[in-house]
């Protein structure tokens, strides 16, 4: 049986992610929302959804000891980071006046408010970036399988990822600037938007993940 662990570090709404995974797995996978590091390590694949602020997320991860499980899973098995679960994979975030993150990938998280809407701009961007925006697939990846180029996904975020160098980039989105909306390396894929709330395109991505062998 294909066991999928959804990491629960005590924050936010994991039900949507678990429900969407169950829906696409159609009984062929066991979806387990868990805060138990052992269960995370025993699972065949791991989903790391995130919500809330970076500092709260990091604190909750460290207090629960799940940061170690995340690090382990990132090394070993198909791993999907969603939203804050993507942002905390890099070195640091500008959120909460600077938050140290897991430093698994080189890069940082920056604030839209620092780069959008300067007083001279005619264009006014709402923050958070909320709604359905296009994701441009910058290179092939098994998780993009069957998803049309520039499909729309649902986003809600005020901070965005800036990975160091182009190696990690697999998806880009435009909101005043072009920012990195998906990254991947080896067995890890992480995405800024919410596939669990992105109708057909999002469900397809999750379905691809449930079948992914972790090879890019």
């Amino acid at each position: 049986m294909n066991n999928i662990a959804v990491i629960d570090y005590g924050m936010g709404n994991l039900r949507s992610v678990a429900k969407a995974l169950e829906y696409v797995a159609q009984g062929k996978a066991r979806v387990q929302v868990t805060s138990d590091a052992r269960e995370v390590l025993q699972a065949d694949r791991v989903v790391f959804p995130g919500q809330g602020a970076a500092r709260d997320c990091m604190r909750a991860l460290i207090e629960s000891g799940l940061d170690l499980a995340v690090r382990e899973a990132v090394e070993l098995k198909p791993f999907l980071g969603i939203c804050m679960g993507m942002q905390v994979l890099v070195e640091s975030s500008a959120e909460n006046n600077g938050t140290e993150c897991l430093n698994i990938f080189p890069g940082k998280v920056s604030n839209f408010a620092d780069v959008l809407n300067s007083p001279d701009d005619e264009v006014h961007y709402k923050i958070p970036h909320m709604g359905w925006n296009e994701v441009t697939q910058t290179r092939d990846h098994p998780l993009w399988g069957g998803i049309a180029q520039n499909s729309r996904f649902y986003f809600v975020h005020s901070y965005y990822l800036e990975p160091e160098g182009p190696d990690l980039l697999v998806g880009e989105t435009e909101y005043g600037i072009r920012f990195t909306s998906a990254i991947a390396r080896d067995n890890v894929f992480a995405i800024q938007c919410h596939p669990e709330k992105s109708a057909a395109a999002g469900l397809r991505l999750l379905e691809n993940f449930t079948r992914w062998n972790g090879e890019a």
Partner: protein
Amino acid sequence: MDYLQRGQYLYAQNIELKYGIAMPLAVRIIPCLDVDNGRVVKGVKFVDIRDAGDPVEIAKRYDAEGADEITFLDITASSDDRETIVHVVEDVASQVFIPLTVGGGIRTVDDIRRMLNAGADKVGINTAAVFNPEFVKEASEKVGSQCIVVSIDAKKVSAEGEPHRWEIFTHGGRKPTGLDAIDWARKMEAYGAGEILLTSMDRDGTKIGFDLQLTRAINDAVTVPVIASGGVGTLDHLVEGVTKGRADAVLAASIFHFGEYTIHEAKEYMAKHGIEMRL
């Protein structure tokens, strides 16, 4: 339409869009369903739906038509029956994978958590914010601004010829609060509202279109997204809400419920008028 065509169209029609032409973020269409004791009321009339009162069936239909989100307004009067909306959200969230917002009767952080755990993505806070603004602050700190939609019910109180002024009303538009709508919107943003659902109580149910001046004024006053609501009777009203009112999203009930237009038709119409939509 690609961006160039859109630009040409907007120029030709003299349409002013706040985003310019290179804004791929889509404007959202949000159908709103009133739910009383677990059943959709205000008569949704789809001829081919077996059970028009079933929130799951209707939500699935709207999802299939291309709704960008769905809002449930719980109008259950008895607090004993409030639990039913939780089950509704659970059922819908296991079958419909677009953002869900639940409003009505949200008064405590526990209420919010219950909804989020059931599968809602956002909650709408209305009266509770007016009587206790600190609640919005507490809620956004606990669950994050992205989950908090503050509903603003506003009514025009300025006389003809005076500068426009709108006031916040409660109890379905019956009770004035003395709060200026623009000041209130700014305050709610500062307190952590992630989005504002703006309803013109003058226009609600009239089908004569949004109060565009109100919509524009609130949009210009805050940086969070604003959903325009109240008064939609035609597809042109939806277009105006965006091009003139500058709303980020439009919410409507009856034009979709009674099958006058499908959501897909509305989206195609808006796209034809130069608005970026998810089609």
